[in-house]
């Protein structure tokens, strides 16, 4: 129990899931132009969109590659789940910025925007006359972020990077995996997602600076360097010892005990590093002599000691149920939890109460239930409004509402192929097969 009822009551009130749409959005009024594809760039913009930014996403005629990257080549109502995951609350425009007339439209939008993000090959925006040099001339408050594997300059600038390459070039894969086996890639596109997150951090930092000074800026962000930054003690260890950090499975080489253990009915993650925590664990195990032998956390970290301690815990959990070990953790003050799967998370009352998983009714796709980006903010909570969209779905809204072009002019731009919509021959560009032609359309 969190200590004290007043605290619990305040938490319930501050984070009431039913009140989200009664509250402000942190990035309300911030317009972001997204010239991005695949996962990293779109994710960075998605994080901003769920906290209130108006993100306008530009796609070329073939569409974002994620319209075609999806598990088992599975599509749902014509939609690619691979596209859905990094594209919420956005406005969708079909327009290729390499087209000179499209470029003019884009520049008109830049005048009315706050942030421009691209994850194209470094220099591509400059070739189109859309580098920060040009953009800042027409809007000195603009913040422009470019992200790529190796950045905009340096010996490796221009090298292609994929998520799996960034994981390996940054050293993450070399330290992930079991001791006696090979390196293992993350189960997700971790190097894309976390780099996108740090891009969003730098954009909001730049917005804070602009709020105080009125100054915009250019940001050059490197994906592989970001992976390097996330590897905690790896680098200082190599520097001090001349050795590579070894793979150690689920065992934590810097915290003992901290590992994954097998119970009679599943897996439990367990950690107890502080003295009182380890004492609590040994009490739960009814092995007080183990605590007496290794009270000191630093001493427990010696390889030989760590192996002995972990072995004792392995023997102990073998005949326990996961739920029992979790309850003992809560009773005795050590950390113990099951491994959650997608199904567990989907049905978790805890995550629903916390608005970590939100439900919404999408005008195109119907009922949705999925994760909304953290953290939970009491006054400006993140929220899900709508899902991804067919190619060029919001052309009308963007050009009529924001640029003031009359609808027949927008139509003309479409006829002249300056802007475009989904290709009916390509299902994953298109609305769901049963779409009525009007649902979800903001302005025709």
């Amino acid at each position, binding site marked *: 129990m*969190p*200590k004290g009822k007043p*605290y*619990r009551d305040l*938490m319930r009130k501050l984070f009431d899931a039913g009140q989200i749409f009664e509250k402000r959005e*942190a990035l309300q009024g911030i317009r972001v132009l997204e010239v991005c594809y695949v996962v990293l760039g779109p994710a960075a913009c998605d994080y901003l969109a769920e906290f209130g930014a108006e993100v306008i996403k530009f796609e070329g005629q073939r569409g974002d590659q994620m319209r075609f990257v999806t*598990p088992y*080549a599975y599509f749902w109502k014509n939609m690619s789940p691979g596209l859905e995951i990094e594209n919420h609350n956005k406005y969708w425009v079909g327009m290729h910025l390499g087209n000179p007339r499209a470029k003019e439209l884009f520049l008109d939008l830049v005048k009315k925007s706050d942030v421009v993000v691209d994850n194209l090959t*470094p*220099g591509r925006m*400059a070739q189109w006359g859309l580098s*920060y040099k040009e953009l800042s001339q027409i809007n000195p408050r603009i913040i422009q972020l470019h992200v790529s594997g*190796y950045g*905009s*300059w*340096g*010996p*490796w*600038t*221009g090298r292609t990077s*994929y998520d*799996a390459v960034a994981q*390996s070039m940054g050293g993450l*894969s070399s330290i992930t*995996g079991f001791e006696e086996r090979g*390196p293992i890639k993350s*189960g*997700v596109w*971790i190097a894309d997602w976390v780099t996108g*997150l740090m891009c969003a951090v730098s954009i909001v930092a730049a*917005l804070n*600076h602009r709020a105080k000074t009125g*100054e915009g800026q*250019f940001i050059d*962000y490197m994906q592989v*360097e970001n992976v390097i930054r*996330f590897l905690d003690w790896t680098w200082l*260890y*190599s*520097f*001090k010892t*001349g050795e590579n950090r070894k793979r150690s499975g*689920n065992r934590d080489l810097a*915290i003992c005990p*901290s590992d994954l253990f097998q119970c009679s009915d599943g897996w439990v*993650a367990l950690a107890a590093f*502080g003295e009182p925590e380890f004492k609590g664990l040994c009490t739960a195990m009814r092995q007080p002599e183990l605590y007496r032998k290794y009270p000191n956390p*630093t001493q427990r970290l010696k390889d030989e000691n760590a192996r002995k301690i972990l072995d004792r815990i392995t023997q102990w959990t073998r005949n326990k149920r996961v739920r029992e070990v979790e309850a003992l*953790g809560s009773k005795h003050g050590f950390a*113990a*939890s099951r491994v959650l*799967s997608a199904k567990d998370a989907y049905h978790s009352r*805890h995550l629903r*109460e916390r608005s970590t998983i939100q439900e919404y009714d999408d005008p195109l796709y119907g009922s949705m239930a*999925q994760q909304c*980006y953290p*953290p*939970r903010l*009491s006054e*400006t909570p993140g929220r899900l409004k709508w899902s991804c969209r067919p190619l060029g779905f919001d052309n009308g809204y963007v050009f009529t509402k924001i640029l003031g072009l009359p609808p027949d002019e927008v139509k003309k731009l479409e006829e002249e192929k300056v802007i475009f919509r989904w290709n009916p021959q390509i299902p994953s560009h298109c609305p769901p097969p049963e779409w009525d032609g009007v649902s979800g359309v903001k302005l025709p």
Partner: protein
Amino acid sequence: MDDKNIVGMAKDKEYARWAYAETRPEDAVKKPEALAHTVVIDASYGSFAGLFASSILAEIGAEVIRAEPPGGDLARKMSPYGMMIKDSGLAYINEGRNKFHITLDLTKTEGRKLFSKLADKADVLIETFKPGYLDSLGIGYRQLSKKHPGLIFCAIHSYGQHGEDAEKHANQPGYDIVDQARGVIMSITGEPDLDPELPGEYKRPLKHGSWMGWYVGGAWAAFGILLALFDRTRTGKGQLIDCSPPEGLLAISNYVMQYFHMSGQEMPRAGNYDYAVFPYTYVACKDGYTFISGFTDPNWTALCEIMNRPDLRAQFPTIKERLNPQNQPTIQHEIEKFTTQYTSDELLEMVQEYGKKPDKKGTVVTGRLENPREILGREHWQERKTFVRCNDPYYGELLVPNSTFKGMSRTPGRMKWACRRIGADNEFIYQNYLGIGGRRLRQLKKAGVI
């Protein structure tokens, strides 16, 4: 710097030169900082989520005051094999950057008073205690925000501050392994479930090698804090941030939640395979491991031509077959029969040679898996100042990663110092913020408050 090292493999050399001029590492110290004059108290304990969050803020200019108990933060002891440099482990030294270090005993009345007074002067407070602990001491969000409504209070804990599990497990401390276990990604990371050749003992969830739960949690916390600071510039109001690191991982778990919603199905652990793009995998080679991809039909054809395996192309002709999880172990093992005969450099050469052929069918990408020592030696990272080597007056010779925000042209992130010993800044901070020095400070020290 040598022009060839600036333009590298750039498609547009002028752009590379321009970008270099805008973001030269040597100029960083002369430029302003995004969070100048922002005061952050990091009272986190035993948590690198809290420490990484405050590192991010410190790199971009916040004045971060690290408040530790008099004996030091438990996190100082978290170090591989127990390696210590004086009072700290390697992991802590890495995240002590640009922070002032004070001590403060919150279990003592006097300590709580000091804490409360410091919080009045801060813009942001970060804590990682068990949910409700600070509230029970009278210095939680409920009490502090009454006096100081502009305060941004960021509480980080595995189970969060509210919700069913937070109420059930509030007595558990937060740890990276639990953050990873509850973050869903761990359930689908590890050796492939469906590979019949894999020994059963390895068919289990696997964490990321690094503290991915803590670091991702810390990055989300910093994101939330910056959002709240931005909101405060417009409204003057502070708020409470409830950051649960496992949710930080769940939020980026690819499409497993969406796929479950749409199909009612879960996805098995894929190992180095990927159910949405394959081959796009790590394979063994003669001298280690290398990445190799050939996913779309033309690229798969190219890979099969390089391996001289037309039979494989015929057996798995479309992406439907290649994305079938039952087929992926077979494809992986067949590719490895080829790659294990060559070194990673020989494979790269073969792929590059193939790429020059006029009748090539598609593009194959390959690249050696780098280990930390190789990475430390790469010229690109040296030129970009990815690592900072320094001689710390207390900790001696150190090497730590630089701020990744150093590419912000107007307000670049930077490293000023690596770490400080326990209580090193008591005198400066207490004098500067609370006017406490000399005799009074010695009294507090004697009473065990600081």
